Structure formats: C-alpha cells, structure tokens
C-alpha cells in the first residue's frame, strides 16, 4: 500500500524468509528437523521468551529498556514456589495472580525510579537486576523448590493440550502476544506508548501523561515476567534461586531486537517480535540436532543481535535520506 506499510512488511517478511531458509538449510542436512515433532520442540522453547519479549517490546518502544526481567522472573517464580511448598492448602491457580501482581509491583518500582528521579532505565534495571536476585536468595534462604512441591496440574500445563497436541503453555504465550498486539494497536494508551517513544519531548505537549505511560510499560513488563515465572515453574517443575531466569533478559532483548523493534523507540510490531522469537527458537532447536556444541549459542546470540542492529541502522539511514527530500521541490 504505502511506503510505511511495505517497509514494515518487508522487515517482517525478511525475518519470515530467514526462518524458512534456515529451516530448509537445516532440513537439508537433518531431514528430521522438518517434522511436526521438531515444530513442537521449537514451540516449546519459545513461550517464556515470547511472554517476556511482549513486555520488553513495549518498554523498548517507549525508549527504555528493562534488564531486570530475569530477576523478576526468578523472584516471582520463587514466591509462587514457596506458596506451593509452605501453603499447599491455598488453591494453586492463585499463584497466577500472585506472581503476575508481584511482577507488576516490581516493574512499577523500576518505572517509578525511572520517572520520579529521571534516571536512565538501563542503570536502574541493572541495579534492580541485582537487588531482585538478592531478594530471591533471601526469601528462599537459598533453597530450591523441588518438583514434588510444584502442583502436577501446573506442570501438566506444559504437557497436556486442549487441541492439536499443543500444550496450554503455548496457547497462553500466543494469547499474550495477541493481547499485546491489541493493546499496542487498538488502545489509546498503547498508541501513546508508540507516540512517547517516537518523540518524548513532544509527548507531554500533546497531552500524553508520560509518567503514566512509562509506569504502565514497566508494570506490564514486570507482570509478564511474573507470568513467565509461573510458566517457568510449569515448564521445568522446579524453581532455583540462582538459575531461574538468569540470563533471560539477554535472550528476550535478542528476540526483540531481531524482531525489528528499534532501540531508538517508536517502532516495533508484535508479529515481528513473534517471528524474532521463533527464529531464535529455530536456532536453539537446530544446534543440538546438528551436533553443534551448546557453547556456541551465546556467541551466535551476540552476533545475531549485532547484525540486527546494523540492519536496523541501515534501514533507518536510508529512510532518513529519503526523508530529507522535500515534497514541494
């Protein structure tokens, strides 16, 4: 239709094409990669990252970043796990509101520090990354919550499926993505997130309540990390104070940046991020199949982030030179 639409489409098609090419290339070497079963494996790798990426996308679109999501995931998962262990009489589904609510509060703390004191989010969340992880150790007395305490019904959500053999957890993740898409495209505050990231100086002049929008994106990011915390307990069946959520932020930021969300704010789409998550999932699932040692994964993540940044930058530079042409002349 217009240049704008086609540009965004191109970015998303670009990722989709990369996914297809990658899968075909791996499939050429290992045909079993192109089976329904490996689709299932890929899908099962994605839900946590997808949920985290939805929140992170909003934060980055608003020109901030949230490095503390891994620690929020760990802390909320631990609180839920401790509820399972020490208060087994409480109905387990209550862990959902508990973890999501706690996550939202932790996210609000980030947002409040960022807005009230006008601090850069990167430093604030680097601090809370450390702080929340420390709190996880303290409340748990550095003890792991073992499988036996995590309710079977919760664990089953990662295994049993309502339809098509796809476990609940994947439906939840894609449901979150759908809700985020709706939020970003069809609510006032969702559009305000994009407006704020697009031009933070102008936002208050146009009646956008910057504090509210900033708090909202951090709260959403925190709440979704809380949901990811519960999902972690469901997926892996245990909660460990030091491992749970460790390094989560890097995976999520990688997915978001690959998905075409601009670190300069204002730009990003849910379908792009979903594709970015899927691409990472494909890479993670393909490595062991190809016999590539897991030690390379981190370098691949780093390289992919940098390449995505460079591509993003190139696209922007092109856009800018076009933008400087005058319409009238």
């Amino acid at each position, binding site marked *: *239709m*217009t*240049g*704008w*639409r086609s540009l965004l489409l191109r970015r998303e098609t670009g990722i989709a094409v990369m996914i297809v090419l990658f899968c075909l290339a791996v499939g050429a070497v290992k045909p079993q990669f192109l089976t329904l079963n490996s689709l299932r494996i890929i899908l099962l790798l994605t839900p946590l990252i997808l949920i985290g990426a939805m929140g992170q996308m909003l934060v980055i679109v608003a020109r901030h970043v949230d490095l503390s999501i891994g620690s929020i995931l760990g802390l909320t998962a631990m609180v839920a796990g401790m509820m399972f262990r020490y208060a087994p009489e409480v109905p387990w589904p209550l862990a959902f509101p508990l973890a999501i609510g706690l996550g939202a509060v932790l996210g609000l703390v980030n947002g409040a520090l960022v807005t009230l004191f006008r601090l850069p989010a990167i430093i604030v969340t680097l601090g809370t990354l450390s702080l929340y992880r420390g709190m996880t150790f303290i409340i748990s007395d550095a003890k792991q919550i073992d499988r036996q305490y995590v309710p079977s019904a919760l664990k089953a959500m990662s295994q049993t499926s309502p339809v098509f053999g796809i476990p609940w957890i994947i439906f939840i993740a894609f449901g979150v993505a759908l809700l985020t898409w709706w939020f970003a*495209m*069809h*609510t*006032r*505050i*969702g*559009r*305000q997130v*994009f*407006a704020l*990231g*697009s*031009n933070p100086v*102008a*936002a*208050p*002049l*146009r*009646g*956008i*309540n910057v504090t*509210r929008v900033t708090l*909202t994106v951090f709260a959403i990011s925190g709440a979704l990390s809380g949901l990811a915390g519960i999902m972690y307990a469901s997926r892996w069946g245990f909660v460990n104070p030091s491992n749970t959520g460790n390094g989560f932020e890097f995976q999520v930021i990688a997915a978001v940046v690959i998905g075409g969300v601009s670190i300069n*704010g*204002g*730009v990003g789409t849910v379908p792009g991020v979903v594709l970015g998550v899927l691409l990472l999932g494909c890479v993670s699932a393909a490595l062991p199949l190809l016999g590539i040692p897991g030690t390379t994964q981190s370098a691949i993540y780093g390289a992919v982030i940098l390449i995505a940044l460079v591509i993003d930058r190139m696209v922007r530079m092109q*856009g800018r*030179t*076009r*933008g*400087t*042409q*005058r*319409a*009238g*002349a």
Partner: protein
Amino acid sequence: MDSGSNPVLLSARGIAKQFAGVEVLSDVSLDLRRGEIHALLGENGAGKSTFAKIIAGVHRPTRGTLVLNGQEVDIANPIVAQRLGITLIHQEPISFPDLSVAENLVLGRDAGAPLARVPWARMLAEARATMGLLGVSIDVTRPMRGLSIADQQMVEIARALASDSRLILMDEPTAPLTPKEVATLFTIARRLRDEGRTVIFISHRLEEVRALCDRVTIFRDGRKVATEPTAALADADIIRLMIGRPLKEYLHKTKTQVGDVALKVTGLTRPGLFRDISFQVRRGEVVGLAGLVGAGRTDVAQAIFGIAPAEQGSIEVAGRPVRIPDPAAAIALGLAFVPEDRAQAGIFRSLPVDQNITAAVPRRIAPVLFIRRAVERALAVEAVKRLRIRLATLRQPIGELSGGNQQKAILSRWLLTDPQVLILDEPTRGIDIGVKAEFYDRIGELAADGRAILLISSELPELLALCDRILVMSEGRLTAELPRAQATQEAIMQAAVPRLQGVAA
C-alpha cells in the same frame, strides 16, 4: 468584519512568567474576543511565544490568572487546554515521526480511558476529510517521518482544524509554507473566525498581519506595549512599538575598505538541501544571506564549515582551494561559525564560562601538553571585558547566564581564534535589544578590521542595515544577489518566496 463588539472569550490578567529566576513575561493583561483574528507581534524573545504557550498550558504562569468565558481557569497542562478547546500550532511542527499522519492528527484530543479502543476506521475517514478541507493530498496512513516541513506544518494546522477548538494559537505558522499554502491557511483562518472562533496569529511579517488580523498586540521585553485594531496603526508605528526606537538607529554600518576575496564557494551542492551555490565574500565586507526558514541557508553555512560537507562544489579560502572535512579543518583555515541554535550547538551548559570561551583554542591555553589555567583565565577575562559579558564569576556555569551574554561568550570564543572569515547564523535571535545593538557595533568593527563576514538572518531590517550585499536563497538555490543600494524588504521577499509576487492577500 468588525469584531470590536464581540464578547470576550479569554482574558488574561497580570500574567507573568519566570524561568530560573529570570522574568521573561511581566504583567500581561489582554482580552481575546470571539470571532477575531488577533496578532501577537514582537521581536524574538519579546515574550509572545511564551504568552501563547501559557495559554496553551505548555507553561504555567508564575503570577496572574486566565479567565475563560467569565470563569477563572487553571490551564495546568496541554491536556487541560485541549479540553477547554484551546489548540496551539507550534512554531516548529511537533510530530511523532513513527506514527501515521492520521494518528498525529488526533493525538491529544482523543478522549477516553487509557484502554479505550482506538477507532481506526473513523479516525482515517475524518483525517482524510480534514486534509481534503485544506486541499492537501497527503496519504493519512503514511508515517510522518519523511514529510517535508511544510507538509508537517499543514498536518499541524489540520490538527487544530479537526480539534474543533474555540481558540487556536498559531505560532509563526507561515514560515515554512509556500505562498499557495499560506493563502489556503488564510482562507481557513478567516472561515474559523466567521464561525465565531478566536485565532491568535503570531508572526513578525507585517504584511501577513495586515492582510489577516483584526487586532494586534505588541510585545516588547516581556511586556505588552499596545493592543490596537490593525487599521489604527501604521507600519512605522508598529516597528517603533516593537523595537522601542526608530529603525534608523540600527544603521551603524560604515563604509569599510573592501579587500581581497576571503571566501569563495563554487557550485556547492548537497542533494535535497541546496544546489549549485556560488558566491564570494571579500575582506572587510558583510554579506547577508536571506531566505525563509528551511531555504537551506544554515545547511550552506554548515557545509562551508565542515559540519555536513557538501557533496559537490569547491571552496576557496584566501584564494587557495581547500577541502574542509570537519570544523577542526575549517578553524585551522581561519573560519569561524556562530551557530543558530545556541543551546544545541553553541554552549556547554554545565561548564564554566571560561572553559566555554576557550573551547576552540586548545593550542593557546595548552602550548605544551598541560592546560595553563593562568593563560586560560587571562584570555577569558580579556574577552569578558572586551564584549562586556555580564557574569558573577568566570567559574560560573554558562547556563546561568542570560541568552545575550551566552551569545557574547560564544562570539568571544570565535574571536579568540582570530578568524578571517566569520559566519554568523541568526546571531541576534532571542537576545535583548540593548545587547543586539552591541552586536551590530561589533559586527561593524570586525568588518572594519578586515575580516569577511557572512551574516545569516531572518530579520530583514538587520540585514538591510548591516550588509554590503545580500544573497537570497529559496528552496535550496541562490535566487538573488542584491547590492546594498538595490536591497529592499520587498526585493528580498520577492526572491525568497518561491514562484510568486508578494504575500497572499
């Protein structure tokens, strides 16, 4: 049309505003009537924009009250203003480059809860209708990024139109517009007035004010000096009220000895910004560069100074062809550039005045390796004396000084480099009239000293008073070169405004 008897819509009572302890607006009282177009006139920094921003809720007054329809209102922020039916069209278009044109149109007036649904279909339809009213063909689904300044300004105007406001403030809306667009704008403004709305029109182009406005209010030094029907004032009266003294006093420029060519540019081109610019400036000569905002004047200056070098064309300094890849090279060749945007490209806000003054002469303050504070201080003291910079101490952060004194410090920074060619981009913007006069004296002295001066200015009287020759740019091209004798405001505007005679009436 006579609006003299219309009821008052908004009345400002004793409005004052201080920024960081400096009073920029004092005790302004003014009644705005329904169904009138009211001009706010004044020099840069006279307070008219600040006053408009207070009404639009961008700033809150330090003192004073606003009464809307007989009720005292507290316009705490732009949202409140919007709700009260007040819309401000900013001087520089404010847009959200990543959002679509349609969204830019509605942002700020879309009411509802945060989670309320965005009615895309209705929004697009309304946006198309509004753009149609303005006679502009812009696809409303495309993002703002990439629109020309004029198109962005049209979107701004469309936004005000669509918002159904009672009071519309336009802060220099015509600067980037083509005459045809200006004509459209004027038609719309009149229609708004006839519907009983109030339009505030800020400009310093007398012709436009005369053509459009029912009443004018003139600001000077943060005070309101007059409110009269437009017809009641002659141009000379308006200018006298604006500057507080007759125009004649500006004419300082004495005839100086014009020497060799100091700067010569040939065929300078940077696609999209300017094309095939050729001119020369001789020693002892003040050459003006006139044109509308966005005509490419600053871009040419930046290209010469190496900030954003041209893609084609050549530059000669003192008769030798040179290559200027960055400002450091330009400085080494004896060029100096006082940029237009002082806050962004001039001062180091949090650093002391002396460091600001010596920023461009590292060799002089540190002949070998270490900075010699005594030398630095001595240079700064001398500069402060010479330009009469008012300050408390040299260790004071420059951000604490007034605009005029900041500008003096920037000028003194460049004088320390002993430049042979001095490029001044709107050097008197936003500074007091008294300081302005000092600047004019200084520019004359520098030329008399045998330096070549290229003066970019939007204030035609300033150019006419100071320059030996005036170059005019329009849409990236040089459209006229007027010797002093032939230069008039009309001649300049004719060359500056693309494809048309005079201003739309």
